[in-house]
């Protein structure tokens, strides 16, 4: 019971360079600012780039023509692409740039980063306010571990399915890849997302600090229903218990109908094998369900007639309610949204057009509508949704807006296809209680001050 519930408790706030958590070990204290980067570049003389090119790239004939694959393997292989500010010329039209490389790197002007709490049983937060569209880059997908990152040799990976089945079976990773694989885009959100904003709100919280424990992208893997056909389910199987191969052997129970519906044993994300922090080489994916149940490093599934009542579905990941009970197996994520721009630490300019934009999602299908208020919830405007709106996926919304320079409050309110409406903070508190612990789905607010500074609305 060493592991405390750090998800959402650590209020990572990269915007002001601090990271406060009961469990924070090593706060990340420095962020490279864009302004600082630009200043550094301005001080750099152009032409430095050529000095950094590999010799063979500078000499004609040293490399195959562009677009033509080399007939022999070059040696040594070029380094992974990494661009530094010192190499940015004053005028990139006056000298050739760096050659091709093995791995793509970001522009040195763009430095998005997760905000890690920095302990083995903790989280790192996706920088939502630095992302566009709906797909989370793989290296920015949030983390939530319960005993660190399990590092697994794919050659040794095995998935055991047993219990109420006809044929208890062990699948290798190769087995999983040989079976029919399908792809789908969906979000994955920790149900502790928003805890810091709810329990210890601060005006200086960014979207990353508030709701950075959600990510979205394309998952590929074997439908669990395919594996169920391989093993043959016996009568009476109503739950399946999934266990991870990490040092906490994290375990959760899931109703078997979810397993037969859209559950997947995912082996890839955004076109490449899963990253270790997100479950390499294979994890359970339960679209629309709370992240914790999507067991990473999945090694065992047991079909059973009851839930296991594991630590993370009893003492954790249950929702104490205002009525003196605690909700259990609250697996489906509620309808939710957050404006990611303008948001702290942005600063607005008055009387010019800007765009209010953010993401909305629900564990119950598609987002039907997102309303945006620019007057603290007194009135609402229907925002544009980016098509195609995908079920159980982040949905981008946007609204052109001209700020008049007066103090105001921005809000977004998601409505999903079941008619569920994102509640106000007051409605949320009344139903769930001030002491509730998960599924913090209430409306997020941003206060725009007269000087253009934007702050999280901590009690709006």
């Amino acid at each position, binding site marked *: 019971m060493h592991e*405390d519930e750090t998800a959402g408790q650590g209020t990572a706030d990269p915007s002001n360079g601090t990271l406060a958590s009961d469990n924070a070990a090593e706060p990340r204290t420095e962020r490279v600012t864009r302004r600082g980067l630009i200043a550094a570049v301005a001080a750099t003389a152009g032409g430095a780039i050529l000095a950094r090119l590999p010799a063979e790239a500078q000499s004609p004939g040293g490399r195959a023509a562009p677009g033509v694959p080399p007939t022999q393997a070059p040696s040594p292989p070029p380094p992974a692409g990494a661009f530094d500010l010192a190499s940015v010329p004053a005028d990139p039209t006056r000298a050739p740039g760096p050659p091709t490389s093995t791995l793509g790197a970001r522009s040195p002007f763009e430095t998005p980063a997760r905000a890690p709490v920095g302990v083995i049983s903790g989280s790192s937060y996706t920088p939502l306010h630095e992302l566009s569209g709906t797909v989370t880059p793989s290296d920015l997908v949030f983390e939530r571990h319960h005993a660190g990152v399990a590092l697994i040799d794919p050659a040794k990976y095995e998935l055991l399915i047993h219990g109420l089945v006809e044929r208890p079976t*062990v699948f290798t990773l190769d087995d999983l890849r040989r079976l029919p694989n399908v792809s789908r885009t969906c979000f994955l959100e920790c149900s502790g997302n928003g805890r810091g904003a709810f329990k210890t709100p601060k005006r200086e919280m960014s979207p990353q600090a508030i709701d950075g424990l959600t990510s979205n992208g394309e998952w590929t893997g074997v439908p669990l229903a395919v594996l169920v056909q391989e093993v043959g389910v016996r009568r009476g199987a109503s739950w399946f218990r999934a266990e991870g191969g990490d040092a906490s052997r994290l375990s959760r129970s899931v109703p078997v109908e979810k397993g037969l519906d859209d559950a997947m044993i995912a082996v890839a994300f955004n076109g490449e094998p899963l990253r270790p922090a997100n479950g390499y080489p294979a994890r359970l994916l339960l679209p629309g369900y709370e992240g914790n149940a999507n067991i990473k490093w999945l090694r065992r599934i047991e079909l059973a007639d009851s839930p296991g009542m594991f630590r993370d579905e009893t003492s954790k990941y249950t929702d104490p309610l205002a009525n003196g009970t605690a909700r259990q197996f609250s697996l489906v994520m509620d309808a939710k949204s957050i404006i990611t721009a303008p948001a702290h630490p942005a600063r607005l300019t008055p009387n010019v057009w800007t765009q209010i934009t953010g993401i909305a999602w629900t564990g119950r299908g598609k987002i039907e509508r997102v309303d945006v208020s620019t007057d603290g919830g007194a009135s609402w405007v229907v925002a544009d949704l980016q098509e195609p709106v995908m079920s159980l996926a982040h949905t981008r919304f946007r609204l052109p807006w001209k700020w008049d320079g007066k103090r105001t409050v921005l809000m977004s309110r998601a409505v999903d296809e079941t008619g569920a409406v994102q509640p106000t903070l007051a409605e949320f508190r009344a139903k769930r209680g001030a002491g509730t612990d998960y599924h913090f789905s209430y409306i997020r607010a941003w206060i725009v001050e007269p000087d253009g500074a934007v702050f999280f609305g901590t009690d709006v």
Partner: protein
Amino acid sequence: MSAARTRWLAGLVVSALLAGCDRGPLADRATRTQHAVGAGRLPSNVHAAPAVPVRFGVGHGATAAEIAAWDVDVTPDGHGLPPGSGTPTQGAGVFAAKCAACHGPAGEGQVGPPPAGVPAAPKLVGRDPRDGFPFGQDPKLVKTVGNYWPYATTVFDYVRRAMPVTAPGSLTNNEVYAVVAFLLAQNEIIDKNAMLDSATLVAVKMPARDKFVADDRKGGATFR
């Protein structure tokens, strides 16, 4: 889960097995192609994909030994509880040696600095509030084994699989029984002289046992 629901699920699985792939998880693949063939939209030498088998026969049969090596689940019905036993007194010794450095000598929570990279260890012992279950109303309440955990079997399961955090899986079954006995006694749930084994552990009723309710959220306009 109701008997009717279970029967329905079993029926669903069986019907999928009997009907083959056209009703199984890959149904849309076959249906869409056959639709195109039927509509005459494909050239004459392009055919619908042949039916895939209900079973691909992938994977190897798991042996009882393989299952036993990995299946450490302990559930409220006592499934998985191993032979062995322990008392609170024995558990006090194990706890002092292997748990107290983080959880405190009496299970009161992190006392000294935790090991590098390890978060502060939570409080394990405490029965307050004795009346009601006001965790949803009062954000200051601290959940413990004594006031919040609904099943004693979960304590055994979790300690055995995940504790101590720096050496999970290192406790013997007797040590796990003893630590669980110590924690339950510290929480005034079992007697200081009690002995825990597979029979007595299952019989323990935790104070919070009846406080948990099923998820009643269903979407729609009513926020729950």
